[in-house]
């Protein structure tokens, strides 16, 4: 198969256009591709429609940087610290400008992407009946089927899914483990997939456990070797969540000026993800490293 390894800046430059719909943070709180979000800001991408159930502070960061036109999400804020200040400033005060919101629940966004993955126009659910999500998101429609009320959730087919994985080969076959959120459905629903991997490994390592592969490599457009891509969110088996980083972000971004200074320090003032990790600090990252091993039992795939 074709090799697809690119640097982070090449991958974002080649595969994300202004105005694209982009899934990021599909695993909910862990495995969030923060390195890609920083690169989107450095490349001054704009008018993005960002899609995820819960992306922790990633969406808040992108909104403050002016990269977002629309948020298609179930939740946006700062999971352990509270409300997202940039999200609030945009919606309540139009700072830096107003964004559009397409309200979902975790299930309805999961179904929208599953419908996209299945190649059907919608999927029905018994959730959300009687909620005001049906008013603020007019795409969700109540319909009757054999006398029962259901909500029809239209398919979402994003332009790009940017997903984190523990390891990938050069052709885009990748292993993801831990909680999956809606990563698999998001990948299948999207026109292009960019993978950020903690490690690039030989294909035989991926082939040794085909049940653990996220999507087949032919669906993947780009593979980026990007250790530490998810900091401050966690990657199972590699590093833990940097709780303090989320709490500091919450304090530092309370004002617009505070946010812009944060953005300068951690994103705009950095030329690469490596520089970002240096700024975070080696000792801090070492403290977050997973040091012990708890390996799964091997599985036997032999045919003979």
């Amino acid at each position, binding site marked *: 198969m074709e090799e697809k390894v690119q640097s982070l800046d090449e991958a974002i430059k080649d595969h994300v256009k202004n105005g694209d719909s982009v899934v990021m943070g599909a*695993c*909910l*709180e*862990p*495995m969030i591709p923060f390195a890609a979000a920083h690169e989107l800001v450095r490349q001054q991408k704009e008018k993005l429609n960002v899609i995820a*159930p*819960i992306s*922790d502070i990633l969406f808040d960061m992108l909104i403050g940087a002016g990269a977002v036109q629309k948020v298609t*999400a*179930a*939740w*946006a*804020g700062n*999971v*352990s610290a509270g*409300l997202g200040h940039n*999200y*609030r400033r945009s*919606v*309540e005060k139009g700072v830096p400008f107003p964004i559009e919101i397409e*309200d*979902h*629940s*975790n*299930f*309805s966004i*999961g*179904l929208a992407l*599953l419908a996209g993955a299945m190649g059907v126009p919608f999927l029905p*659910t*018994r*959730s*959300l*009946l*009687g*909620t*005001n*999500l049906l*008013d*603020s998101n007019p795409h969700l429609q109540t319909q009757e089927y054999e006398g*029962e*009320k*259901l909500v029809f959730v239209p398919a979402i087919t994003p332009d790009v899914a940017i997903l984190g994985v523990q390891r990938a080969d050069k052709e885009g076959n990748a292993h993801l*483990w*831990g*909680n*999956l*959120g*809606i990563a*698999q*459905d998001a990948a299948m629903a999207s026109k292009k997939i960019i993978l950020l991997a903690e490690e690039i490994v030989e294909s035989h390592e991926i082939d040794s456990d085909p049940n653990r592969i996220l999507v087949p490599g032919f669906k993947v457009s780009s593979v980026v070797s990007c250790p530490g891509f998810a900091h401050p*969110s*966690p990657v*199972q088996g590699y590093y*833990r*969540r940097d*709780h303090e980083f*989320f709490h500091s972000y919450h304090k530092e971004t309370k004002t617009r000026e505070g946010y812009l200074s944060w953005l300068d320090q951690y994103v705009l003032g950095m030329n690469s993800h490596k520089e970002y990790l240096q700024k975070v600090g080696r000792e801090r990252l070492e403290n977050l490293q*997973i040091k012990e091993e*708890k390996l799964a039992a091997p599985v036997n795939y032999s045919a003979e």
Partner: protein
Amino acid sequence: MNYTTGELMVVAAAREIQDKEVVFVGMRLPMLAFAVAKRTHAPNAVGFYECGIVRDFPSEELLYTMGDTPNIEGAKWCTSTNHLMFLMQRGDVDCGFIGGAEIDKYGNVNTSYIGDHKKPAVKLPGSGGAADIASLSKRLLVIMNHEKRRLTDRVDYITSPGAGTGGDWRQEKGLPRGGIGALITTLGVMRPGDNNELELSSIHPGVSKAEVNESTGWDLKEANDLKETLPPQPEELNVIRSIDPDGFWTG
């Protein structure tokens, strides 16, 4: 024994969970309440976490989010969010457990917009899984601070449906099951009474009825058998303090 209001709320919430129940666990205090229930009276309860985790034993460590690495270690299933939502839609979840910003007298919860959703005064983070948990679990538990602006006559926006406008509203809307089981606050516990309106069912030690009434945005009725909430027992506090020693969630 001394305890904080946060600890009392967690314990009161934990007591709502029965043994062997399947519990869809929301963020923050619900995570601690599930841990207390598991380690005291409900050892066979099973926890669902919306990032796709099933656990039959709570993590030993304080969790800041359900996707933290310790929550995955020792899990009974790590799968997609959709899979757990499918099970809940089928009716496999006994009890859903969420926090909220605003709730009304029929147990409708708002975590989305204060004011008109087209031009809100405050943009709250949104549903996450809370709309689904309220729609699809057999029974909903809500835990939140008891303030007049939070316990309001009518919420501005229903993120998580309770009994709507009362009575059989859920059936009329086509919701398959569920409704609020209990609202646990900093001052007491409320449960649905006549017409599915929330009534004060238990009042926390040291709290006066006047304080409850002043902090509630509607004319709160009392249950006929109004009780005082049983204070936390030492074994319950031990569980909370073993997981949250610095009081991050309960201080």
